[in-house]
């Protein structure tokens, strides 16, 4: 998986070089989590919604959608020319997943907490249909401040949705600074456990560990949350573990052109 994440990380920095409006640090923290899902074929590009027994990815932290674009490009679905246009008025690659955004299973995340409800509703619906497909939900830690997040997790636990696998990208940064300083999240593992979730903890930059946790989650008879410890801005020391979003173009390009 190392070639995939290396290539995708470079593509994220390429986009950052041309689009200062993107959320760079968050895309870098979530990259290995998404690579674990796409790289193992758990979720796929170019599968139409409604195809029986397919899996879905809900990226509730929609601002990190560039990590999906980067993986799509690394897997040959998008061109470098198209990546360079990300966030431009004429581009189909917008800065949050929209209705017309390609390679996004569930659009209209971005308003934090709302993707969590969408994922729970989707998982409930798939189960009602008797489908075997799963919903992989990727959230940030900052969005766990939202009341709606916990409203929805309570529903997932109450209805025993073991076809929902939640992965929290614990990068400990949100808009105003470090998450634990902006608002204490408490004992997250304890909060999920008390609702009835099975809780797994991994290094979110170790694809192997994430995949192992996914395999375990898929055997559970309960909803599972994988708390994935990550570093915001991973791979770019000047912004690591900060709320910084922007790099000078030269610096971004030097990363983008680095070897894999």
């Amino acid at each position: 998986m190392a070639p995939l994440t290396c290539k995708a990380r470079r593509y994220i920095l390429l986009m950052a070089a041309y689009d200062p409006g993107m959320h760079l640090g968050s895309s870098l923290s979530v990259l290995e989590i998404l690579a674990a899902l796409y790289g193992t074929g758990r979720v796929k590009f170019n599968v139409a919604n409604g195809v029986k027994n397919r899996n879905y990815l809900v990226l509730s932290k929609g601002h990190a959608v560039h990590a999906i674009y980067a993986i799509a490009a690394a897997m040959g679905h998008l061109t470098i020319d198209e990546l360079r246009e990300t966030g431009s008025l004429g581009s189909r690659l917008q800065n949050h997943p929209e209705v017309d955004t390609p390679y996004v299973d569930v659009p209209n995340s971005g308003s934090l907490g709302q993707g969590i409800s969408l994922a729970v509703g989707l998982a409930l619906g798939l189960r009602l249909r008797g489908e075997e497909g799963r919903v992989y939900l990727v959230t940030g830690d900052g969005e766990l401040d939202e009341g709606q997040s916990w409203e929805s997790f309570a529903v997932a636990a109450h209805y025993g949705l073991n076809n929902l696998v939640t992965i929290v990208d614990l990068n400990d940064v949100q808009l105003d600074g470090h998450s634990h300083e902006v608002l204490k999240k408490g004992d997250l593992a304890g909060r999920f456990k008390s609702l009835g979730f099975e809780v797994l903890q991994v290094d979110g930059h170790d694809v192997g560990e994430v995949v192992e946790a996914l395999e375990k989650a898929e055997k559970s008879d309960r909803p599972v949350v994988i708390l994935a410890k990550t570093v915001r801005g991973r791979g770019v020391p000047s912004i690591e573990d900060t709320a910084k979003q922007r790099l000078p173009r030269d610096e971004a390009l030097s990363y983008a052109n680095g070897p894999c």
Partner: protein
Amino acid sequence: MLDIQSLTPREALGRALADLGDLREDVVVVVADTGETTRAKFFAERHPGRFFNVGIAEQAMVGIAAGLALAGFMPYALTFAAFLTRAWEQARNSVDRMALPVRLVGTHAGFADAYDGPSHQALEDIALFRVLPNFTVLAPADSCEVYRAVLASAAVKGPVYIRVGRDFHIPTTCELYGRFEVGKAYVAVEGGDVAIFTTGVVLPFAVEAAQILRDRGISAAVVHFPTVKPLDYATVEKYAQATGAVLTVEEHMVHGGFGSAVAEYIVQTRPVKMAIMGLKSYGRTAKSPAELYTYFGLTPENIAARAEELVKLR
């Protein structure tokens, strides 16, 4: 339909959902601890596997309904209108921007919940849902119309907001017309001097006002618009031009609601004299909705008086 007339509006709602569940297997119902009070329990009793209670969590209710729609279902999500609007941003971002076939039903709307006071009395919901580009907005007048509107709503492609009361209604529409068509206005009284347009439960007040006006030698038309959006512009145009004086009446704030929708059309086409009747601030606790209609001036006498003023201004 005769048995529907004997039901309260919320009972008609629950009954309609249960019947709709017989007709369509894709219909699911989501409530926020409101299965009992919205009478969604009628659906739950007949279709228990397709009924979900998410607890007192309106934002999750709307988002989960959107997720169920993504899975191919047609969800009806029900709670008090006053608390549904708490999830307005979810209706915007999770439902309307994808134009999902989610049906949000706000019950106890207007003064229907007189007993619980202004916190429970939604007077802004029409404005809030009307502003969302893809939403259809329905505000039926009585139990018959609630039943018909809910069944008709299933054929709408995008999202729908349905405004329903609780127990108060004056049966008016059962005999007025046969088939409910989304987007169509219904003429309750013909007249040529002034046109009174209504939506929701105030229709019978306007019908009574027309009788009062007739005794004063004024011929008032009463046209009922159970669909606020898309508005029946052709009927607005026809009666505005025929009378030159339009009075709108609604159990809702005068800002942004049904009257505003009518005014937006009229001022941009061929303006006529117009007045908007409704509420200008919050309600209060009372023993019945009827007390509140009187207290806040939504009465046949006041409607007649406003209509008479308009006729003089023509």
